[in-house]
């Protein structure tokens, strides 16, 4: 499997590489230079171009995209209904971009389209990293907080719990992130259960490629 990654930072990309290998149970052939977006609105802006580029100019068969949900509506089971589309849910938006961008593509490089793999970290990737370590951190806890109008933690707090500073250097950020990811690499079940936004990524990645 030839995989390309689109993420928001080098630290996110490092984590994603480990998680993709763990999901597949073997090292994936990941394109060396990851595609990068500058935060959420930019993810959705560059995604069509990345999909088009990968489809026509490369033999990559899978594009893995992750982003933070920040304070956007969280993707829930209700969003999975046929024809349902939540205009502010980032999972719904990313999937729609994949669908719309590639629906008229002719097959290229021996595949019908680049496979879509989408994950949304609620509210940020640091929550995935804390999963299994801080029992109060989960997607359900965040949704409950959104509904109650009292969020259980902030993104800044999650970052501080991982990096022990508000301003980690990039190497420190990557080192801490990989240290926490090691727990998931050994056993993904807790992350899959507590974070449906990650479970969706797993499901996409395990689905058969569209040849």
């Amino acid at each position, binding site marked *: 499997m030839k995989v390309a990654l689109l993420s928001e930072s080098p630290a996110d990309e490092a984590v994603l590489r480990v998680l993709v290998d763990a999901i597949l149970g073997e090292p994936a052939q990941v394109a060396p230079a990851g595609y990068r977006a*500058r935060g959420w*609105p930019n993810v959705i802006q560059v995604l069509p171009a990345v999909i088009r580029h990968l489809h026509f100019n490369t033999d990559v068969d899978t594009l893995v995209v992750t982003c933070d949900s920040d304070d956007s509506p969280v993707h829930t089971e209700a969003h999975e209904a046929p024809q349902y589309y939540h205009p502010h849910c980032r999972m719904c938006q990313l999937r729609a971009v994949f669908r719309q961008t590639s629906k008229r593509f002719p097959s290229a490089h021996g595949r019908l389209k680049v496979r879509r793999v989408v994950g949304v970290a609620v509210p940020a990737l640091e929550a995935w990293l804390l999963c299994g370590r801080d029992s109060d951190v989960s997607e359900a806890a965040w949704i409950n907080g959104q509904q109650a109008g009292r969020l259980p933690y902030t*993104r800044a707090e999650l970052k501080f719990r991982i990096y022990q*500073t*508000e301003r980690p250097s990039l190497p420190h950020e990557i080192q801490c992130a990989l240290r926490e990811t090691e727990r998931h690499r050994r056993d993904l079940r807790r992350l899959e259960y507590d974070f449906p936004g990650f479970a969706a990524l797993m499901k996409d990645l395990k689905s058969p490629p569209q040849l």
Partner: protein
Amino acid sequence: MIASVAFRNFKALRNTSLRLSPFNIVIGANGSGKTSLIQALQRLRTLAMLPLGEAAAVTRVGGPEITIAFAAPHSDVTARLGCTSDVVCDLLRVESPSQVQWDEIKARLGTMRSYAFDHEAMAASALTTSGGGLASNGANLPAVLAARQRNAPAEFARLEAEFLRLLPEFSGIIFEEDSGGRVRFALGIGGAGEPVRAENLSQGVFYLLGLLVLSFDPVPPAVVCIEEIDRGIHPRMFREVRDVLYRLSYPTSFGEIREPVQVIATTHSPYMLDQFRDHPEEVVITQKHGHEARFERLSDRVDLPELLREGTLGDMWFSGVLGGVPEER
């Protein structure tokens, strides 16, 4: 170190003030007051080194004036620069409870440095004996590096390691000294390859090296002002540039125990601005309307969270929503 600066009738800064944080990234249109802020602080440094004496008795009314307040433990000290014109500020009045307090501030102000790097100046060889510090345009870089290697080998090793991490195509910093006592440097590329001499390096390499020299200074200044921190550097490296500067202002976040350095940096890059999304309190926008400019802190925008849902910080700046853009006719 410096808590705030207030301007009255100084160039385009007719009536505005700015609270300064440990780290400040200043954005805005050309000619909107970014450099004036740095010039004012430079002027403060220069005048602070002179005896106050007679000048303290002089008061000018109505002319340009710049008032500087200091952070704790010197929050009851105020310095006022009096100017005869937009370009001549030659009067310093200090209100301090004691001479000791002002002497402490003066000592720290004396270390303040401002930089606008010029790669050609940075590439030029320098007298080995002149390795004290970088000139304001970055000149003297070879001598500073060589002196650092000689006098502070541990700090030099850390600087070099960080440089090689950021630019892994190089394998080391190599010095050459000529018979005239001038030193120049080259960068090794590993293996049997010829080292790349300074005159053949790209601009961004010099600027990055200059920032690292400041960031890993064993005796850093109290305040550092740097113009155009994004210049010559690939946008994907901006996070690293930000971190290099954060090392100065937030040493404990980088495992260092020393006094923080107050940083005032400018940029014209929306991509660089994106690096400060999580810390809008560090972003200063200079707003210019007609001939008058003023400062605003990004964190004072109450609608910032909503704006960031619609686009990146850089996009918001470029669009004009944040202000700090050139006026068009």
